[in-house]
């Protein structure tokens, strides 16, 4: 039957080209010195967020660069529930200082790579059906497709000579 011929050829072709694992990327940066001649005025008061990933815990430190610094430190365990709470804390920090879209992350050498990726996910990625945080430029982010990021710029601070 020609119908069967078509189906078997189609099946063979689709089986060969099927992709059963979706591949994604998480983009990070390392500290670098720019040789640009432009001198930018540093903002008068900015919000810094630092994440320290250890084997058994993740610590988040946030503070303003000038008084009142309002320094806060929170610690989370490396398990599914606490990483979800860590992600909610990062959302709260994003809403607290919407103009800041950068986080610096440090990790101990003994941390497993999969744990580091989980921490990066909680800092950087928004899930598909997750409600987006209420930011002033939320509409612009949605139009440019950048609303898939919670913090778009993640710098791996551990990478220094």
């Amino acid at each position: 039957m020609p119908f069967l011929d078509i189906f078997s050829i189609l099946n063979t072709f689709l089986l060969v080209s099927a992709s059963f694992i979706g591949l994604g990327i998480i983009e990070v940066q390392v500290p670098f010195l720019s040789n640009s001649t432009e001198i930018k005025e540093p903002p008068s008061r900015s919000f810094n967020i630092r994440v320290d990933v250890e084997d058994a815990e993740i610590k988040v430190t946030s503070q303003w660069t000038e008084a009142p610094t309002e320094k806060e430190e929170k610690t989370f365990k490396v398990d599914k529930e606490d990483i979800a709470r860590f992600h909610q804390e990062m959302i709260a920090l994003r809403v607290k200082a919407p103009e800041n879209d950068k986080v610096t992350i440090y990790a101990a050498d003994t941390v497993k790579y999969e744990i580091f990726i989980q921490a990066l996910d909680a800092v950087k990625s928004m899930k598909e059906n997750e409600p987006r945080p209420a930011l002033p430029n939320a509409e612009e982010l949605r139009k440019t497709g950048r609303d898939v990021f919670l913090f778009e710029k993640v710098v791996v601070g551990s990478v220094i000579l």
Partner: protein
Amino acid sequence: MSSAGGDSNESLSLNLTPMLDIFSILVTFLLMSYSTDPTNHDVDQNLELPDSVTLVSMDEVPSIVVNRNEILINNKKVVTLQNGKVPAADIQQGAVYPVFQELVEIAKVNKAAADILRGGDDKKAKPGEITIEMDRKHDFEIMRRLMLAGQQAEFVTFKLLVAKENI
């Protein structure tokens, strides 16, 4: 008199209807997972990627692959790992020196190509980007040393390949 195997006049016929059902369901499922994305990559067999909820898809084939036993750059083995660690002889100033040497060559080629496209206007030069594929069970130490080597070779943006949890 019939044979032990049954009546010799019996004929077997293939039941096509259920076979067509199977084929059509199979085709439907495979069509749903068919991708026309030009970027296609087979993950190294000696590694397992970490899971991630990222929605950003891979846009370039990884240049650095760190599987359970070795580090490869553009499919060329540069370092053999010992017990999941970079040998001390391959480490200089905290970075993986053979990786640094290969990345310097890649950076030269990229810069030459970019110069041709831009007409040599260096003001618009952007720091390099590179994609890394690494096994989930490795320690962060290897990633740190790779990033250090990349930083010294003027690569400052790293795209870490992960397995999407939702395809």
